[in-house]
């Protein structure tokens, strides 16, 4: 019987090695180790051996036979699986540059990109973001900002007046398209108590012929701080902090005297680029006492500063856009670039 076992192992191993498919391996497995297989048959005939010691020895031999054949089958099976996988992988070869699929993501408008980035910088400096309507009252846009009726500075705003009927006279309804985001200052002061730390980004309108650097509809961001003992040093420091946060290290800022009816002292603020050149960015100043009063804030108790500048220009400068009008044609060939 020992010889039978040896022969069965040898026969099985030879067949396993020769097997070229998983099915063939399975067949060897069944025909060798199954109940009706060669080893299975020998195992069944074990009970016929009377001598206990011999039976034990044969049993051990049989177990070893099962395990060595079983291991060979597992190995061969794994080998065949791997070969089959390799064949499949080989047959799946792709030239990745034969690209016909296009993934499409949407693109954010450049103004929105600049807008959100500016919001983020000011949020980082401790500000919240306020909003207001685009159609405004004369009072919010001018009068409350220390530009009463007939104030000469009004003329510089190139206001678009709004009415319900084209035959109305400009200004009669008291409605207009806001010429700046500053009315949000007034709305914020009227709606909340100091301390106030807000920025107000938004769309503004001027009666201005579009050209490469001007649009009649554009965007500004306005800042307002009202707190106890807010000084011009705080204004200068905040502008400087913004400059470095938004433009980066190596950029600095300066204030120089200017005039706006709603701030006093007023200033223009310029950004100094690392190459030493200056960029005029926007206007700022200490909130005029009359403006604080219009907002219901006592100028003896509180003081504040405000600043504002264009958002569109930030986008234009960042991307080297030579004609601002291109941003508003909504040409997908432009939009997709960013």
């Amino acid at each position: 019987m020992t010889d039978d076992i040896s022969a069965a192992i040898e026969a099985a191993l030879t067949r396993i090695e020769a097997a070229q498919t998983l099915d063939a391996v399975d067949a060897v497995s069944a025909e060798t180790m199954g109940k009706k297989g060669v080893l299975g048959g020998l195992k069944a005939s074990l009970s016929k051996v009377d001598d206990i010691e011999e039976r034990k020895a044969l049993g051990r031999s049989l177990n070893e036979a099962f395990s060595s054949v079983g291991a060979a089958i597992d190995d061969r099976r794994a080998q065949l699986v791997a070969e089959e996988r390799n064949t499949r992988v080989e047959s799946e070869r792709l030239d990745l540059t034969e690209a016909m699929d296009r993934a499409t993501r949407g693109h954010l408008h450049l103004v929105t990109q600049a807008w959100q980035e500016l919001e983020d910088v000011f949020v980082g400096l401790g500000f919240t973001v306020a909003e207001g309507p685009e159609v405004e009252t004369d009072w919010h846009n001018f009068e409350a900002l220390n530009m009463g009726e007939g104030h000469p500075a009004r003329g510089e705003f190139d206001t678009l007046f709004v009415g319900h009927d084209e035959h109305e006279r400009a200004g009669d309804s008291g409605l207009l398209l806001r010429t700046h985001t500053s009315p949000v200052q007034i709305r914020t002061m009227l709606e909340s108590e100091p301390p106030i730390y807000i920025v107000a980004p938004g769309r503004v309108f001027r009666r201005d012929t579009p050209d490469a650097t001007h649009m009649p509809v554009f965007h500004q961001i306005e800042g307002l701080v009202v707190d106890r003992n807010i000084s011009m040093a705080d204004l200068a420091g905040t502008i400087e902090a913004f400059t470095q946060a938004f433009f980066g290290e190596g950029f600095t800022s300066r204030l120089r005297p200017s005039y706006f009816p709603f701030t006093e002292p007023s200033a223009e603020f310029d950004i100094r680029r690392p190459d030493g050149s200056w960029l005029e960015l926007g206007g700022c100043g200490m909130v005029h006492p009359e403006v604080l009063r219009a907002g219901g804030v006592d100028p003896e108790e509180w003081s504040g500063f405000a600043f504002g500048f264009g958002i569109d220009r930030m986008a234009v400068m960042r991307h080297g856009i030579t004609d601002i009008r291109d941003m508003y044609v909504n040409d997908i060939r432009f939009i997709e670039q960013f």
Partner: protein
Amino acid sequence: MKVLLSWLNEFGPFADPTDSEAVAAVAADLTSLGLAVEDVIVTGSPVGGVVAAKVLRVEQHPDAAKVRRVWVDAGDGEERHVWCGASNMVAGDVVPLATLGTTMPNGMTIERRGILGIDSEGMLCSAVELGIGEDHSGILLLDGDAKLGVSYAEVLGIEPDVVFDLDVTRNRPDCWSIEGVARDLAAWRSQALANVGNGFSADGDSRTVPVAIQNPACGRFTATVMSGVRVTSSPDWIARRLEALGMRSINNVVDVSNYVMLELGQPNHAYDLATIGDGFTIRSARDGEVLKTLDDVDRACVVDDLLICDGNDVPVGLGGVMGGADSEISESTTEVVLEIAWFAPLGIMKTATRHGLRSEASARYERGVDPTLADRAVQRFAELLSLTCPDLVVHSGSADERSEGMPELERSVEVRISEVNRILGTELNVGDLPGLLDPIGFVTETAGEIAKVLLPSWRPDATSEVDVIEEVARHFGYERIGRSVPKPTGHGHLSQVQIRRRHLRDVLLGLGISEAMPNPIVAPDTMQRAGIAGDTLRILNPLVADESSLRLSLRPGLLTALAHNEHHRRNGVSLFEIGNVYPPTGDGLPSEHEVLGVVLAGRDAHAAVAVWREIAQALGVGAMIDQSNVPDGLHATRSGVLRAGRDVIGAIGEIAPEVLENFGVTERVAVLEVRIDGMLASNGGSGSYRPISRMPSSDLDLAFIMSDDVAADRLERALRQAAAPLLADVTLFDTYRGAGVPDGYRSLAWRLRLQASDRNLTDADVADVKAACEAAASKLGAELRS
């Protein structure tokens, strides 16, 4: 506003015009003072190599009628010849010769270029070619006695100079004069300011032209008679200064008038005394009254215009704006009456605007002229006129009428040093104020912690404490103010609405839709072309008629963008906009609100629904599609309104074919337009966690035949209800119309994924769900398809 450095230097001196570093320092100082220097123009730099040369003889070119050969002597004894196209010189004239190698202002270099084999040894120059005038009719003729070989500039007395073009802000009327700019600059540099205009007394016999002010918009009117006038040309230096600042030299009287205005900021007008009669009246115009102004335009006036009239009540000037043509100085004038007046700024501004006539005078009056300047201006006028009129007599007895419109002259304000430091963040003492303020005429008396500041007559803008604080800041120096960062008590953050708006944008971008930003101002018929009814707000003063209505919908802008892209062969474009619409409320502010618009070119209504579902899921909001109401301008059978409860919040589907035609779009366009202010303000985004089942799931496919009259989502909702709580998901995976399904019906195939949270599903569970679904569907008239 332009100022000339040499002129400023008469009050200074401030810088040598040839010293570019010193010039740059002046520019920097002016900018630091708030007089932003927009341009620095160097003038009078002579063109090197151009010298005075005497014409020896002129020969006609034998073949070219217009070309002459000119022999000249440039003082070195050498006889040179040049070719010349001009013919205005004869032998003996002295002319500018650009010698070989000279580079002209236009960049051309003079070379030995010949005609017909004969070289030209230089070029004779016109005033234009030298950049010193506008006359290009011939060669510039120099003084015949000039020394030959010296620079033409030396012959002409042209000196290098610098023009600063300043952006003078509205609060600085004083800087509409050389003196005002010099005053600020001298104070900044701690220099003394020279005194001008106190050198000529009125010692002629008394001659008075009476003045009557009938309208207080004229606060002051002085009239001074001068005789011994001889109208001639001005000295070169006066003419050149005027020209450098953009004014033409006319004659000595007009030039002096302009000179005084530029120098002191006081507009003034010299009338020919012979045309005035016996006095001036300053009164309101009568409606329709016509005055021919100096620029030879007939101006029809209205009652708000102020006229200066002569003794016969004939208008001779539009007050503060421009004199009349008929009383103009002429060559025969020998006696003048000089008007120096003060007018209220607002009226001048309105008159100048009404007549579209912004003169140098009106520009100054509408900002505010120093009401005390008259006496000095008269003296300066006489002093300068006497240079060309040695017999000039200034008669005493000049009229000086004032009305109740004359501004208050004694004005003062109290300034607290504590307030100065609170606003500026400085640590100044009250004793520091006089040093900063006195040099600019804000005369300061200190008492304790308070300074009483007299406000100068040339700063009508300054009326309150904070106005003086601004002056302190300017002359202390903005750059010297420290920098601190205030510490907000709250923390910086975006609001819920702002965070959700950004999330909405992210969702749209993820869906492959790009952001557009069309103009919210549209043409009056745009809404109608988009099929949208309703009145719009109107722009009452539009720049172009096509941009005069405020939009009610984002669709027109987005459709215009699609048409543009289609025109450039970009089909299938997907765009969104988040922006405001402005429906009128009848009175007052419109019901302005924020809207999302989405257009998907080349896609059908289902694509719009898919976008809406994604947005609704992302923002945790819901709305029903109601196809029984078709929104204006949308496709009649492929659209509906979005309904949240009873409110219609939007429109969804496809753009109506006729609207597509109106906008020139040929592709089908899926559209979603929904009001988002409420959606963003709601708190729907933060849904709570639903545990994921670990149990196996089972799919149940059910196809129902249902009438086309019933919306599929009603069946979906019925199935959801019937299959709950074992339902994990339900999707519509097939629709079918055709053989086997009656007309007017369709088959809708749904896949229900069933799953229990705590156990394996049994066949009985699945059978129960199927039975419940069948029952629910039958209530909608839907039958299970076998």
